[in-house]
């Protein structure tokens, strides 16, 4: 199978702290992988390594056939990273951010696409606004519009619904679903388990930087077939898996 993202033995250490330990997984086109885990599990570090922001301590990341360590520029051209806290250049307007992104990724029909994205994100009329004039939710939408402008093959999302209102959340879910249907691979990190359950085809549960479970919800449920295994919700499974990880922790 031709995967958009292939990760093998990914590790990330901060000094003496092992934030990510030996993650191995792959994501196919059109697939949405949910990255879940408790606070400090290593989700953001994993996403930053996948986006080429943090250099992994060891392991291999291949995006759309490009090795992120060797062909970083080509790999980055195929992906979009949408962080939980959107960061912008303070002196570029909304429209100039799209223009800037278009030049970086060589999107020739960016004006057409940009207008459509701004409309989709309900940012029409805000073209001349600076980031400082936007609300938290609007910034999140602008980050998504910039991320989607070059039609990436891999979309990495860290808590994508933070700051969005209920209508924005509904639109965002539909937008993510559509990108997946169009063939993009999505890796979505979120604490909102209902969202993960609703959107993701497979789950990667991590705790303490290690992969605790990988597979579809049904597969994970079947693997943990306890007395109430079949009817267990994702929340039940999450608690069970992460509690097990806690007990496996070596003594300090």
């Amino acid at each position: 199978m031709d995967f958009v993202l292939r990760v093998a033995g990914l590790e990330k250490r901060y000094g003496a702290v092992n934030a990510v330990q030996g993650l191995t997984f792959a994501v196919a086109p059109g697939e949405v992988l949910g990255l879940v885990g408790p606070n400090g599990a290593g989700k953001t570090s994993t996403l930053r390594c996948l986006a080429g922001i943090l250099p992994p301590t060891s392991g291999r990341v291949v995006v759309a056939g490009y090795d992120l360590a060797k062909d970083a520029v080509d790999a980055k051209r195929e992906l979009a990273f949408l962080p939980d806290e959107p960061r912008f250049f303070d002196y570029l307007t909304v429209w100039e951010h799209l223009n800037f992104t278009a030049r970086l990724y060589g999107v020739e029909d960016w004006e057409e696409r940009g207008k459509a994205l701004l409309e989709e994100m309900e940012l029409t009329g805000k073209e001349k606004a600076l980031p400082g004039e936007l609300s938290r939710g609007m910034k999140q939408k602008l980050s998504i519009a910039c991320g989607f402008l070059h039609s990436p093959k891999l979309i990495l999302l860290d808590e994508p619904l933070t700051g969005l209102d209920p209508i924005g959340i509904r639109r965002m879910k539909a937008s993510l679903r559509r990108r997946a249907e169009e063939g993009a691979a999505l890796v979505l990190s979120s604490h909102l388990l209902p969202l993960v359950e609703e959107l993701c085809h497979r789950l990667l549960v991590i705790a303490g930087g290690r992969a605790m479970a990988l597979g579809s919800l049904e597969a994970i449920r079947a693997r943990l077939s306890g007395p109430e295994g079949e009817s267990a919700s994702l929340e039940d499974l999450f608690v069970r898996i992460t509690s097990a990880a806690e007990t496996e922790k070596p003594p300090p």
Partner: protein
Amino acid sequence: MSFSSAVVFLWLASSRNRLRLQLQRLRRPRYLVGALVGLGYVYSIFLRRLEFGGTLSNVPPGVRLFAELSLVVSALVTVFSAWALGPDRPSLTFTESEVVQLFPAPVTRRSLLHYKLARGLMGAAAGALFASLFVGRLVSPAPGFFFLGAFLSLGTLYLHSTAASFMRTRWGEWGTRGLVARWVALGCVLAAVGLAVYSSLEAHPFPRTVGTPGVLRNWVQSLVESPGLSAVLWPARLLVAPALARDASDFLSALPPVLVLALAHYVWVRLAEVPFEESAVTQAETRTRERAQRASGGSARGGALASRKAPFRLSARGRPEVALIWKNLITRRRMTGGVVSVLASLLLGCAIVAMMGESRFFTDTRRVLGPLGVSLAAMMAVVGPSVFRMDLRMDLPKLDLLRALPLAGWQVVGAELAASALVVGALQLGLLTVGLLCGPGAEDPWLATWWWPGGVALAVLLPTVSLAGLFVQNAAVVLFPAWVPADRTGSARGIEALGQRLLTLVGSLVVSLVGLLPAALAGAVVGFPLWSSLEVWALPLGAAAASAVLAAEVGLGVLTLGRAFEHLDVSEDRPE
């Protein structure tokens, strides 16, 4: 646990943890070296000065009078500001953390007031300590008394400002009536002060000749001792008297009035107390927002700036790194700092020339502007790289954003450097053009011969020197991210951070000078052989060779720095 013991716990625990964190950091060699350099600097600059061996006679009367008047005037200005300047609201400021943690806590407003007053008095003690280190030795033979006296003075002034803000808040609630009442009262006080100054000047006019030593000092002495002015200055002189005490008995005799004054101000603050929570919350939010914007290299202002157009239309086709140059040039247009600094320098230069009595500035401006333009262009090579910062120094706080871009490290570094280099270079060429066209400003045949060849040489060389300066400053940010804070908030604090900055400054100077050596050598190798045939016109050719070598050095540096940028991992100092 009572509120006061909770606050003491908060302060002690915070201090202990901060100290522990700093000590832990010393395990890393770069922090240890920084701490040692910082300690050495503090000792050599400040602490060595505490070795007082002097006596009363060591402080000349003129210096003492000047110090006393400076302190008195500072105190009066503080009092005037408290009543006349700023908005009508309580001056107590709380941090966002204090608002969130302390305001909902089960404590009275009075407890919060005392908490803040205690913080203010701690600030006064820190201010007194710095004043003792910086000026104590110059104005007082007894540093201990100077510190205690300065602490009492600053503390009383803090209480006065707090009480004044409470009174203004009360009057502010009366609307126009309160405003009129305040300004009428202020007007009466100012009129009385004006009258006192006038009568004193009438009695003691400015001496006709001030050339003889001591004449000016004697006049000031007689002026401040005249009945009118001495009455105006009396409260402030009372306040600063303990700080200027010559010995223990002097200090003890000056102490009681100040203690009474401080106590009276405390009672006044208690009696004048007004609700301050709403104002504190608003101010805390504003400060947090402004700090966040400053940290990301932004400005608190926004809307109007967006209307300033982009320098050119950015097509979607072409080299991607041009987008970064375009972005930084837009930033330049929408920021004011650098251009304001250059304009201020120009104005300052003109003012200095005018003050020096250079009459030609008004009669033959062209001749003054010539040398001024050339001098400023040369100065820009040193000052420009520090003033124009729309490069990695501005963008590194957004490292995640830069690293996610589909650009190689050298492309990011090169493009980030380019915008600042283009702006500084353009300014230098503009200033040189003005300078060269205006002429040397003197009828000197030697200067006339060198003017154009020298100017052309500078035009070739200066932009490259500025580029090299920019490169060194950006390299420091990338290579030592923990030493050189890229954001303006300067997160690193403490003695080791001071040492690191000193080392970085010295390192930058050394690297710049070492980098200039091969360029100078190349300039000499090309220029000297051509001198016999081209004479002064060999200078531009030598400069061109030097410039080419410098540019090549920067090019190599960009490639190397690009690799360092790709492997830059700030997570060591910024854990997830």
